[in-house]
């Protein structure tokens, strides 16, 4: 258990530093790269929770597609070389206050809800947890118990896609 805790804190520290980098950076591309650190840290946390499938999907979707699209968009529109001071504005202190407040509320909620719960990853209970994290189990629950929400989400995404095309095409 100790080893997992050490890794958790190391990863959590890297993620927090990366997240601060995202909002502190004066350069859009650097900010996107800091975001990669945060996403990779989240994937590593999933591995610590024995959810290997979710971890790889996190990397494929967020690092391999979403942030690549961010970078693609940045490079197509404007790719500032060097510092871009316009990224900073005078609302940084209100923003800092709001984010600290949000972090406090969410953290307090999480600690209140799960603070005393221990995640067992060894023995019979651990085996059960490993089964839950497997690809087959996830697929089963998505396509049986949660099939309606799954399809609704996919239709929502399709509608968003069509909407984007309609808005983008003026001819």
């Amino acid at each position: 258990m100790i080893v997992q805790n050490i890794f958790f804190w190391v990863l959590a520290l890297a993620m927090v530093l990366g997240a601060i980098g995202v909002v502190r950076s004066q350069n859009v591309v650097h900010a996107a790269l800091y975001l990669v650190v945060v996403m990779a840290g989240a994937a590593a946390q999933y591995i610590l929770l024995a959810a290997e499938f979710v971890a790889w999907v996190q990397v494929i979707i967020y690092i391999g597609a979403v942030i690549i699209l961010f970078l693609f968009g940045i490079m197509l529109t404007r790719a500032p070389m060097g510092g871009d001071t316009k990224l900073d504005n005078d609302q940084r202190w209100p923003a800092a206050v709001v984010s600290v407040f949000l972090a406090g509320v969410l953290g307090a909620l999480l600690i209140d809800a799960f603070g005393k719960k221990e995640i067992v990853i060894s023995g019979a209970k651990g085996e059960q947890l490993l089964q839950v994290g497997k690809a087959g189990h996830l697929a089963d629950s998505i396509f049986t118990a949660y099939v309606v929400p799954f399809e609704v989400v996919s239709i929502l995404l399709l509608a968003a896609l069509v909407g984007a095309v309609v808005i983008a095409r003026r001819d």
Partner: protein
Amino acid sequence: MIASDPLLSHGIDLEVVLIVIAKTIVVFALLLVLVMFYIWFMRKVIADMQNRIGPNNAGPWGILQTLADGIKFFFKEQSIPDTADRWVFRLAPYLSVLPAFLAFSIIPIGGKVSIAGHQTYLQLADPPIGVLFLLMMSGVGLYGVMLAGWASGSKYPLLGAVRASAQLLSYEAAFGLSVVAVLLHSGTLSTRGIANAQAWTSWHSFVTDWYWSVAIVSFVIFVIAAVAETNHPPFDLVEAEQELVGGFHTEYTGIRFAIFFLAEFMNVITMSAIAVTLFLGGPSGPALGFLPQGGFVNLWIMPVFWFFLKLMVLLFGTVWLRASVPRLRYDQLMDLGWKWLIELSFLAVMVTAVVVVARDQGWDRWIAVPAAFGGALAILGLLRLCMPHRDETVSEVV
């Protein structure tokens, strides 16, 4: 639970750790030597195809040419442009070489052997969701090219990077979908499981299985998408010399430039090895009947031999492609990716699903499979009819 290798299933002691380290070093060295050999092989074969001699000075038949080039690159000056983002500029070559290395680690190279009393596979790692790992690596590999183009701080590299990201994002979809058909057939995500699922039984079951009929379509889509994913000619718009000087690596010199080329050729080898694993049965093949089944030759040598034979055939194919097919135009590239490959691979997935369901439900496959193909062709025809036609002029060259 990271791997289903029998080596790791009985607890981990020092010997097991040493075996894993030895395997890592062997795979690493093997890939480097393969790249060296492949570059020499490519130059020689293209030279033959073009009636030239090719490299012939360093070593017998010029086989040491790549090594000489590599050593030369180490001693060259490495310049960084004034406008470059220095940190990202230095980082980018490594970001492009690392995924190529990592993806090769889950390729099954040989059969199950025993080293120092431990049963193990001739394969560095066999994660239960290996195919997702492959897709992940091909997605992450894009960062090197994109960041190199952006960090160089000049126009041609940036254009190359934008082209690269558009191309790779477009073909990733077809690439992933063509793999889905294989997964439906084998029912597992582990690379060794997929290779084993293709093990030979008999001609009769091979023909009546009907998997080959869809697998051929998926294989063609996979090969085209993989060639595009590796920026290999005829899809090398990313570094089109006539248009972009060198594309994303224009500003790179010395060993950093060499690392980009190492990554590129390594990607070609890794992709070919993946194709061997997913579609050509990996290390399986006929054993030598006159030698004992469990003997050294049939356990160690023959699977490795079959793997490398298949790999060599595919690698020769890539060289052939490089020597003979002209580069695509940008709009042709996008048409092929979005209008043909993606819809064809969707249809292949549907037909494969019908074949799998027919197997599980015990339907008559002589009716089900042709019906599925007919349905797929009808859908394809309908889609073609509905698609707006655009005349063949260059209108969207980026």
